[in-house]
């Protein structure tokens, strides 16, 4: 999450869900927490019971709004205007946390001469390259004064840099934030004399605080009301609640989810929230921070240990085809930072290469760094399917995902699948993706679809063991309860055995290109027969020993053998990593999860009394720190800001940081420590600089070159919007967004009368994503059995739509039919004096399953935001009409079944059988 990464240093939720309870005010925005994360929502509810104020800012009155003290309805996509307004309010009324901001943020840092703001350039920042639709941060002088980029002789490579930005090569994950251009990452901030020039008085016109004040001057309450469609009163009440509940004694928390991320400006929305929380002094403190509520059981894990094209494990960028990434040294010089924790980059990469290539990776051959594939373009899902639809892909694997149903502009995704030679789907049910050739009502007949499909039955989570990393960075191990039925296999089994077969196919090859595969360390067999919890032996042959994989991820001291296992000793944490090849680690970030052959910390289930942080339940990265940047919970001198909000503090007697949480800081570095001018690495981080992942140890109000679409958030309209940009009239939508035009992805960019209605998608509690895990299940289907669309009575009347009747929704990409849920929970908004209608579409239905219906994602578009290639499902335009669609309608593809299983429970007397399996003792009357 570059928004958080650029601001604080790590792209993940800062606090834990249980920590909501310590909050005094919770702003839920871009999230429908009660419906999407009901169990997580128990914690805000607890906080509310303890007197906290809950605020929901959202386009739609949802089950979340029903339980908030304050609900403000805004137009979807206007979030930055609202947040910008809050920042403006905090600055204008001087409500910001002075000591905190001065000490822990770059408010006082001076920015290069020549930086120009959206104020100066009518909605553009300096450094924009129109031909590439991208910024060059260096040319734009976004850097710190005195940094290399400030020195003219360093201004090479910029053309190609912008090019890369345009191609959308991200490397965003590197948690200091994205490299926005081809120059070394340190170029923007690396001050020659250690500390960059500052002005503690915050008066200097080029200091960040002054730039901030100028930048957000436009975001007055009146403008906010006009853009968002709320009232000035509603806005000020939100602002006041946040200000009243922030400071030494009180903390506020901000919650977001895909309601923010699924926008072309999503990253900047998160940046805006970060700036606000920093100004209010809410980061690194109990009950504060920014909670990203993520959607999948291990979506955090799949970013940490990524299956992402531009990332290697631990947020190391996938090498790109650039001089900057040519050799290992280039890579380290280019991506590492001389100051702060990223000085250890080389240790991380080398240990990863050792984990990948084992003995083949040696110092003399650069640890086979050259074997890693280089990326020369954007290979993200959206771009890949776009290429697929043009017939440029041969084969594709889909494991536990459903692009044909859930992909943005799902029609394009299905068109892509039809162009493949072969497709492998590993799943539990015949999903849309597996049956696109058969059940898609919009598709040509099967005999015109060439794709060969392998559908491999997968094991359910109860039938395999492994680690899931939840939304609060918590690694939790789940054990295998029983064997999967029939030929069902875990995805680990599938990948492991596919690997074995491929290595066999290639064995003996001397071709250079095959050496990476042949030298891959690929031995995870169980040493002893695998026992199930009930004592019986597993019947599955070839199942990998998942513990061994997690141990490889944890890291090992290769030159020390553990007598108990006869294998290399496991590392106790990432601090033990070396860059000489004597250690390996599949993901440095997870170091310490498996410190001992006997102790898998992810499997820890120890609970101490009281709420607390529960450090012995699972394992939170980094190094079991539950609240990140917690050094900021104490003042610069190391004393808690207040008794009420104490977390960790400096104990002079013990000469170390103590408290309830694992310090996210060097445990013995005293608050008074000051680095020498030429200090490097962690030595360059002072004792009062809590953000150790940042080169300067402080949080970034102003993102000096870490984000591609500007150092500060600016409001742009969604690509499809019925209104213009009221704040920067010359810039309707983000100048850096990549619109992938094509016959399959038409857009209604400029406001058009053909598509006057604003639409957004949302999640229901009763269903899950595109439905593979819910629409095959009777107990969930009956709770929400049909696709519907929520619209206001006003729109219904205007379009002659009956509540409960049928309506059709048409966007430039497609049309669907649905039942009309006419409800006052959706209200028309007055923007620019015009009435703007919004409709909400649950995105759970499509054509496969026991309950089928119109697919909201047939309407959404493929767009790519410049930082992470994120699409824009939360704001697009459409037309709404009464009645049904002509042509074929989807029918259920499986028989809805009343009972999952009608057999009696084994080894259980009649008296203890469940009562619901009614037995018919005579013919029904």
């Amino acid at each position, binding site marked *: 999450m570059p928004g958080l990464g650029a601001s604080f240093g790590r792209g993940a939720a800062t606090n834990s869900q249980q920590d909501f309870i310590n909050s005094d005010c919770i702003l839920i925005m871009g999230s429908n927490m009660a419906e999407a994360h*009901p169990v997580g929502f128990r914690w805000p509810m607890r906080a509310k019971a303890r007197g906290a104020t809950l605020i929901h800012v959202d386009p739609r009155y949802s089950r979340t709004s029903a339980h908030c003290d304050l609900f403000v309805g805004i137009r979807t996509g206007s979030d930055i205007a609202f947040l910008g307004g809050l920042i403006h309010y905090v600055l204008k009324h001087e409500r910001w946390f002075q000591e905190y901001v001065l000490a822990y943020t770059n408010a006082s840092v001076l920015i290069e001469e020549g930086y120009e703001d959206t104020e100066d350039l009518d909605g553009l920042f300096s450094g924009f390259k129109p031909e590439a639709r991208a910024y060059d941060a260096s040319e734009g002088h976004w850097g710190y004064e005195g940094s290399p980029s400030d020195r003219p002789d360093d201004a090479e490579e910029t053309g190609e840099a912008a090019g890369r930005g345009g191609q959308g090569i991200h490397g965003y994950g590197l948690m200091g934030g994205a490299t926005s251009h081809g120059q070394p990452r340190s170029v923007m901030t690396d001050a020659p004399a250690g500390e960059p020039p500052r002005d503690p008085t915050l008066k200097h016109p080029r200091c960040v605080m002054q730039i901030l004040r100028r930048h957000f001057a436009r975001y007055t309450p009146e403008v906010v009301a006009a853009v968002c469609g709320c009232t000035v009163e509603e806005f000020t009440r939100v602002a006041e609640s946040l200000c009243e509940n922030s400071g030494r004694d009180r903390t506020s928390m901000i919650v977001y989810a895909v309601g923010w991320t699924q926008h072309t400006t999503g990253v900047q929305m998160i940046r805006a929230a970060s700036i606000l929380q920093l100004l209010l002094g809410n980061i690194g403190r109990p009950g504060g921070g920014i909670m990203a509520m993520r959607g999948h059981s291990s979506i955090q894990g799949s970013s940490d240990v990524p299956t992402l094209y531009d990332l290697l494990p631990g947020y190391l960028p996938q090498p790109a085809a650039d001089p900057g990434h040519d050799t290992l040294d280039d890579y380290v010089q280019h991506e590492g930072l001389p100051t702060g924790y990223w000085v250890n980059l080389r240790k991380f990469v080398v240990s990863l290469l050792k984990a990948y290539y084992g003995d083949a990776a040696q110092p003399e051959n650069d640890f086979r760094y050259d074997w890693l594939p280089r990326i020369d373009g954007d290979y993200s899902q959206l771009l890949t399917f776009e290429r697929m639809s043009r017939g440029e892909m041969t084969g594709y694997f889909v494991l536990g995902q459903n692009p044909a149903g859930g992909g943005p502009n799902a029609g394009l995704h299905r068109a892509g699948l039809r162009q493949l030679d072969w497709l492998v789907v590993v799943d539990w049910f015949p999903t849309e993706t597996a049956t696109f050739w058969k059940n898609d009502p919009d598709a040509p007949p099967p005999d015109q679809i060439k794709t060969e499909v392998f559908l491999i039955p997968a094991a359910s989570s109860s039938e395999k063991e492994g680690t899931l990393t939840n939304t609060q960075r918590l690694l939790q191990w789940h054990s295998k309860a029983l064997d999967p039925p029939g030929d069902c296999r875990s995805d680990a089994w599938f990948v492991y055995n596919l690997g074995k077969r491929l290595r066999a196919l290639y064995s003996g090859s001397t071709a250079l290109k095959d050496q990476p595969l042949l030298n891959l360390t690929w031995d995870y067999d169980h040493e002893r027969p695998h026992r199930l919890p009930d004592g019986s032996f597993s019947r599955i042959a070839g199942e990998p020993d998942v513990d061994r994989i997690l141990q490889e991820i944890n890291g090992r001291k290769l030159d020390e053998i553990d007598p108990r296992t006869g294998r290399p000793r496991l590392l106790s944490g990432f601090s033990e990593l070396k860059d000489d090849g004597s250690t390996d680690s599949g993901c440095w970030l997870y170091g310490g999860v498996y410190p001992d052959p006997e102790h898998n910390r992810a499997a820890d289930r120890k609970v101490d009394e009281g709420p607390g942080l529960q450090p012995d339940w699972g394992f939170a990265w980094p190094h079991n720190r539950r609240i990140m940047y917690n050094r900021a919970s104490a003042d610069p001198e190391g004393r808690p800001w207040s008794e009420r909000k104490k977390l960790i503090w400096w104990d002079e007697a013990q000469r170390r940081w103590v408290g309830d949480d694992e310090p996210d800081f060097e445990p013995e570095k005293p608050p008074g420590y000051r680095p020498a001018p030429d200090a490097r690495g962690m030595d360059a981080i002072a004792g009062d600089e809590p953000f150790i992942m940042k080169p300067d140890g402080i949080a970034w109000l102003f993102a000096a070159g870490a984000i591609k679409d500007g150092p500060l958030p600016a409001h742009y309209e969604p690509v499809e919007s019925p209104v213009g940009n009221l704040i920067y009239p010359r810039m309707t939508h983000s100048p850096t967004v990549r619109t992938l035009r094509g016959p399959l992805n038409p857009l209604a960019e400029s406001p058009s009368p053909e598509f006057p209605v604003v639409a957004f998608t949302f999640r229901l509690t009763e269903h899950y994503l595109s439905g593979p895990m819910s629409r095959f299940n009777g107990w969930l*289907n*009956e709770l929400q059995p049909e696709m519907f669309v929520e619209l206001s009575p006003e729109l219904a009347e205007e379009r002659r739509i009956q509540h409960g009747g049928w309506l059709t929704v048409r966007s430039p990409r497609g049309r669907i039919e649905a039942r009309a849920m006419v409800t006052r929970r959706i209200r028309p908004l007055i923007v620019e004096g015009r009435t703007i209608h919004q409709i909400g579409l649950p995105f759970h239905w499509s054509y496969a399953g026991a309950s089928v219906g119109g697919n909201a994602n047939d309407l959404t578009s493929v767009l790519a935001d410049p930082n992470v290639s994120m699409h824009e499902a939360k704001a697009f335009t459409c037309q709404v009409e009464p009645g049904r669609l002509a042509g074929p309608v989807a029918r259920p593809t499986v028989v809805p079944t009343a009972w999952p299983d009608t057999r009696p429970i084994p080894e259980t007397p009649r008296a203890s059988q469940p009562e*619901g399996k009614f037995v018919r003792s005579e013919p029904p009357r």
Partner: protein
Amino acid sequence: MNARELEISAIPEPAETPSGPVATILGPFLPVVRPEPRTPTGFYTDTTVCIGCKACEVACKQWNQLPSDGLNWSGDSYDNTQALSATSWRHVKFIEQFASAGADAPSRWLMMSDVCKHCSAAPCQHACPTGAIIYNEFSNVYIQPDICNGCAYCIAACPFGVITRSDLDGHAHKCTLCYDRQRDGLIPACAKACPTASIQFGPIDELRDRAHRRIEELNSRGTPSAYLYGEAPTATYSELHSFYLLVDRPSTYGLPESPFNPWLRMRGDYLRSLLGGLAAIVAMILVWTLRMP
């Protein structure tokens, strides 16, 4: 820390009860050792914290292995369950109260998880002619599935419309308050699942105290409309062992404004019934004795 869930597996299952035609016919008539009465338990449902997630409905169906009722979209806010039934023992209700645009009345979306009220004096129990409906040792109203013969009198008797008869086996079914779980010291599936503690289970007296404290809290925090439904007996009805905290009229939630126990009138009706008969007999005999030769 309650880890009863982990200890439970150590307990052996009880012996199988006798089966076969003889046992089926005579079993219900055999004398049994009745369990000793235990502390009365029940539900306290705080509707002000219900997030309408329906976890209770699914948890109930999962634990009791109840069938799903098929796909019927009601259009009635998010309530597609529509009613308690033999196969839906929990029912989450949704009430959208929104003023028309412009009008500045408070907007709210009420949610409530409904269930059998487990009346301490239950009409269904009075009605049951077979003794299938009993107050079990926890003072919960329990329909014994091996006894019920589907006469449906309990359905007619229930003032809350809780009980229905299933087409599948012809018996009446309703919430058992997870009798089987309580026997093993586990709390009912719905109460356990409820993420926001809207459904609370426990000794009925404790629940009442908790509810009263909650009412005071809400009243002091600007919700004067909050009150308890069914926690105390009225002139016409007993207290409920599943009572509710509401903020609107009972009828808004589909509850009778003032439930009435029909048994209050039974004896009078018997008298009138007798009167009707006697009137006829007397008249008849009178005529005969007058008109007989």
